[in-house]
């Protein structure tokens, strides 16, 4: 395994798993990309796993993911709100953009 690993006692919630992690039976325990939380740490302990390839980039990554999710949710809300309007009109389009920008700032 080429990836650098961390000892169990250094693994913190908010870190991200860099590679799939297997239990002693060879079954996938946690997938690469999993966000480490208290529960996954308990699972590692349970299975007697002493180290795992995790990265610290977890925090910013999840922030990006959250932003992405809220962007999608807000667009969906605005799409509903503008569903009966004429979105192809440049003024309506501009208004939609202003509202999206405003909604994103508020989140």
């Amino acid at each position: 395994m080429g990836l650098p690993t961390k000892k169990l006692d250094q693994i913190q919630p908010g870190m991200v798993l860099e590679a799939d992690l297997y239990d002693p039976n060879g079954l996938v325990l946690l997938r690469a990309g999993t966000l480490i939380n208290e529960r996954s740490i308990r699972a590692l302990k349970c299975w007697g796993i002493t180290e795992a390839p995790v990265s610290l980039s977890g925090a910013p990554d999840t922030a990006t993911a959250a932003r992405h999710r809220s962007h999608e949710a807000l667009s969906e809300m605005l799409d509903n709100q503008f569903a009966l309007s004429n979105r192809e009109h440049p003024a309506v389009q501009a208004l939609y953009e202003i509202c999206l920008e405003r909604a994103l700032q508020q989140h």
Partner: protein
Amino acid sequence: MQPSGERLLERLSELPSLPAIYHQARDALERPDGSLDAVASVLETDTALSARILRVANSALYGLIAKVDSLPRALTMIGTEEVHRIILATSVVSVFRDIPLGAVSMRSFWEHSIATGVASRAIARRLGQTGAERFYLAGLLHDIGRLPLYLLEPETMGQALQAHREHRADLQTLETQMLGTTHTEVGAALLTQWQIPAVYCEAAGRHHDLGEDDYRLETSATHVADIIANSLRIGTSGTRAVPVLSETHWRRTGLEVDDLRPVVELTLRTTQDVVSAFLEL
């Protein structure tokens, strides 16, 4: 059988009317030898209304440089032209402010109305129009026809709102289907019955009209302002769905797409203060 829409229009007299003091003040204003002091004396017999007028005069709507604490002084500051409008606006809101509407909150209704008025005024200012407060009043009163619909036909309007939420037909179309009339038709009829100047009747009656016509600028500005207030989700008169923007109204205003952002910003900056002045103690 008479169509239900006509029957509803005949029942408008069941609604609360403008207070007697509005008519007395209007008479005093129109008297050739009248003075603003005489108008103030009439208004001061109603302490609640006087206090309200003073609050509105001191709100962001007028942007007076110094706070004014006497009614005669406030009337002088805002000018004779404007006195009738401020009395009308405060009387209308006060008459309906504390009546439960059922399906929609009365506060939310007035928030939408005030936001539309403020946006309409912001458009007028952007266009360099004089008498921007005329545009405010046109916006404030644009959906007034919804009040008779909610108050006289609460169940049908409840069903219309439900259908609007489920089937995504616009509320105005559902009003026609279920009541045989619309809030625009009822609004124009109500304001005509109250003998309100024609400019406000047209804005209430035609702010959703999409056809080519020679609309007054107040009507077209209100059409655009209603779309802005709905997109910004400030209050609601029943629906937050953004209506269709009419190319005719848009061209009539002479606005450019780039004007929208400053209009939106001014609307957001001003609305809360004007809402407090009209609705809060």
